[in-house]
């Protein structure tokens, strides 16, 4: 079946502009995660959604970052007033549940460059 998909694959934007990144998880996966990977660093957890529960936003680096999820499907990550330090690869992942006993599947990522 289809894996996790993300769009766009690449995004170049000017500092100060807003960007919206999209994630389509695997159908039936109740848990969805957003991560960020800056150059030379490990994956950094941003936010997760689990079913209809309130999202865990504990990893969001600032109030310029927000995310939404429609039911148990598509999610969008929005970054307002982008800064150069927001340049990174943004990865989305989904799994059947939150527990690490479930395998987590990643999308190919969106490479964001803020000029």
């Amino acid at each position, binding site marked *: 079946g289809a894996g996790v998909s993300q769009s766009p694959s690449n995004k170049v934007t000017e500092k100060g502009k807003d960007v919206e990144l999209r994630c389509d998880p695997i159908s039936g996966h109740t848990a969805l995660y957003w991560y960020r990977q800056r150059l030379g*660093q*490990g994956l950094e957890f941003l936010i997760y959604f689990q079913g209809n529960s309130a999202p865990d936003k504990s990893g969001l680096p600032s109030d310029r970052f927000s995310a939404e999820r429609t039911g148990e499907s598509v999610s969008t990550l929005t970054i307002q007033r982008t800064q150069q330090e927001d340049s990174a690869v943004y990865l989305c*992942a989904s799994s059947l549940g939150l527990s*690490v006993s479930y395998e*987590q599947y*990643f999308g*190919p990522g969106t490479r964001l460059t803020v000029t």
Partner: protein
Amino acid sequence: DQQVKQNSPSLSVQEGRISILNCDYTNSMFDYFLWYKKYPAEGPTFLISISSIKDKNEDGRFTVFLNKSAKHLSLHIVPSQPGDSAVYFCAASPISGGYQKVTFGIGTKLQVIP
């Protein structure tokens, strides 16, 4: 403060030989460990995991060893194949924490030379 450390940014190994990728952690609350493989322009894919009740887990050519007292784990690939060339991420979590508690290392780039 890096709680999961992969001190070797890169590793080159001849095809057919053993590849050993190392990972150290500092948080004693970690009791579940994962390895992911990542090809360019793709997302990471889960490779193998181990819980702290074990010291070894094997899946085909891939074996993960855990030394809790040293807070060290390693991934062995035997025999190495050119298709194994990728970036390998070590990750650690409290087993009860869920994926939001997983901490990733920065990765080691493995090159398997034909």
